[in-house]
C-alpha cells in the first residue's frame, strides 16, 4: 500500500513535470515563433530592398544608353517590365528620372511594393525606394 502510494505520487510528479515542460515549451514557442516570423519578414524586406536597388541600377543603365530624356524614360520603364510580380513583390515602377545632359548623368528612382510574407499589424505592406545614377553613354563625343 505504501509502495502503491509512493508510485502514485511519482506518477503525479511525472505528469506535472511533463505538463510543466509543455508549458515551458509553449512559452518558448510564444517567444521563438514571433522572433522567427519577424526574421522572415526582415529577411524578405532586406532582400526586396536589394532587389529594388538592382532594378534601379538596371533602369538607370537602360536610360543611360539613350540620347534624350523621353527615350531614357521609356527605356527605363521598359527595362522594369521584365520584372515578374510575385506574392511578395507585387510591383516595381519608375518613380522619377533626372536626365542631366550637362553633367552627362542620369538618375533613376524606383518604387517597389513589398507584401510581408507574415503580415503583422500595421506592417503588412511596405514601399521600398531606391535610386541609381549612371553615365549617359549614348551622347557622341564633342566635335
Amino acid at each position, binding site marked *: 500500500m505504501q509502495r502503491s502510494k509512493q508510485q502514485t505520487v511519482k506518477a503525479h510528479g511525472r505528469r506535472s*513535470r511533463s505538463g510543466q515542460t509543455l508549458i*515551458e515549451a509553449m512559452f*518558448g514557442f510564444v517567444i521563438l515563433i514571433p*522572433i522567427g516570423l519577424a*526574421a522572415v519578414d526582415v*529577411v524578405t524586406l532586406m532582400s526586396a530592398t536589394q532587389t529594388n536597388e538592382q532594378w534601379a541600377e538596371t533602369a538607370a543603365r537602360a536610360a543611360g*544608353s539613350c540620347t534624350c530624356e523621353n527615350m531614357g524614360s521609356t527605356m527605363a520603364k521598359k527595362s522594369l517590365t521584365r520584372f515578374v510580380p510575385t506574392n511578395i513583390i507585387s510591383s516595381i515602377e519608375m518613380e522619377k528620372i533626372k536626365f542631366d545632359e550637362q553633367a552627362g548623368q542620369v538618375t533613376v528612382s524606383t518604387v517597389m511594393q513589398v507584401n510581408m510574407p507574415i503580415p503583422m499589424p500595421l506592417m503588412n505592406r511596405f514601399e521600398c525606394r531606391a535610386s541609381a545614377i*549612371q553615365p*549617359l553613354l549614348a551622347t*557622341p563625343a564633342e566635335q
Partner: protein
Amino acid sequence: MKYRENAKRSQSGASLLLIIACAFGLVLLIYGLFQLSMIMGGSRQVRNAVDAGALNVSKKMMEIRVTTDPKYADVSDTNGKVGMSNVNRLWGKAYLINANLEEMQKSGRAGPSASSNGDTAYQLAQNVNDQLFNELASSKNQDIYFHQMAGRRTANLINPGMGIDRTKTASCPIALVDRGDESNLTMQPTQIPEGVEAGKVDKGSKSYMQGYVPMTANNKKFTFTSFHEGEQPHLISDSLFDASRADKAPLDDKGTTIPNAFRQFAEASNGQTGVSAVASAVANPIRTYDMAIPQSYITIHVTNISIWNVDNKFAKAIPYNFKQQRVHGLKDFQTPTRVINCFGTIGGEYQAGSSINVILNALKADINPAMKKLLQRIQCMDPKFTKAKLVKLFEQQQYDPKVLRYYIFAADHSADHTDPNIQMVPENGSLPPWIDPKQWDPQTLDPNLDGISGTPLVTEPTTTDQFAQADQSPGGTPQPYATNTGVMMWKPGTGFNKAVGDLYVQRLTQLYFSSKP
C-alpha cells in the same frame, strides 16, 4: 528529499535554458544572416559603383584634349584640340602625307624637301599623340572621372554614409582591345596612292582604317585606335581586358598607342569588413571621321603656245586661246631671200569648247593616269568625291584665258572641317585664307609643292594639219604645215604644306613656213 528538490529545479531550468539557448541561437543566426546579407549587398553596391565609375571614365576620357600643332589644325576639334575621338583623324592626315610621299619616292617625283616634310608630319603627330597618351594614362584624370560617378554612391550596407574610393594603384591599367577591328576613321581605297598598302576593314558599304594593326607608309609605323561603329562605351570582361593590356601586349616599343579601354579598382571598408571590386570598360566616341587632309589644294594650269618656224628655225612664239582662230603670226617677215607673211589657223583642238574638261580631253591620248592622280589627291580632301563629280566639276568650269591657274580645294564651313565641298576657283576668285596665290612663281610654280614633275604623265601623239593649219603669202616650198601635240605634267605634293599637286597641260602647235618660193 533535498536532492529531489534540486533535481526538480534543474529539470525545469533545463527547459528554460534550452529555450533561452534556442532564442539566443536564433537571434545569432538572424544576426549572422543579416550581416552576410549586408556584406553581400554592400559588395553589390561597390560592384555597381565601380561599373558605373568605369563606364564614366571610358565616356569622359573623350573630354581630355590636348592642343595640337598648327599643321594639324584642320583635323582638330572646334577648339583646335585633339582627343581620343579625333586622334585617328590626326594620324589619318599624317598617314596620307606619308603615303603620298612614299608614292612620290617610288615614282621618282619626290623633291628635296619631301622626305623631311614626311618626317616632320610624322613627328608632329607623334608628339600630339604622346601628349594625349600621358593625359589618358594619368591616374589623376581617371580619378576625377571615376569619382564623378562612384563618388556619388555609397556602400551604406557596409558602412552607412561611407563613400566608395578608387583604389590607389601605382599604374592605371589601360588596354588596346578589339585589335584588327575598325577604327572610327572611314576611308576610300582609292584615296590611298598607288603602291601603298593600307590596312582596312570593310563593314557594310563603308571601309575603315584598321585599328591596332600597325601599318607602314614611308617606313613609318601608323597605328589607329579601334572603335566599333555604332557602339556605346560598355563594360568588358577582365579576361578580354587582360589579353589586350598595353603593358603586357604592347603594339609598339614606345608603348604610347592611344588606348581604348580602362580598368578601375575600388574598395569600401568599415574597418572590419572590406569589399573591393574591379571593372573594365571600353570607350567609344560614337563619332566617325573621314580620313582626309581637309585643307589641301590642287592647282591646274594650261598653256597653249604656237611656235612659228621659218626654214625650221624659230621665229616667234605666240600663246593662243581656247578657241579656233586665224592668226597672222609673222607680218612681212624678212627671210634671206624675200619677205613673207605667215598665217596659222590654230586652236582647232578646242572646237568642242573651252571648259576644263574639253581642255583636258583635247589631248588625243589616254588621260586616265592624270585623272587618277587628280582624283586620288582630291579624295585626300574629300574621300567621297568621285570621278563623275570630277568630270562634272571640269565641265562646269570654263577656262578664262586671263586666268593663269585654277585651284581645286574643299570649301568647308563646318567648325571642325568635316563637311567638305570640292570647288574649283580661279586664282583671282574667292579663295580660302589658307591658300595664298601670291606664293606662285611662274618658274618654280607653287613653293608649297614638295614634288618634282619628272616625265610627262600623258603625252599626246603629234598630229599634222589636223588641229592647226599653216599658210603663207607668197607660197613656199615645201608647203607650210602645222603640227599639234600636248603633254600633261604632274607635280605632286605630299600635302604637308597644303599643296597636294599641280596638273600642267601644255599644248604646243608648231607651224612651219618656207622662205623658198
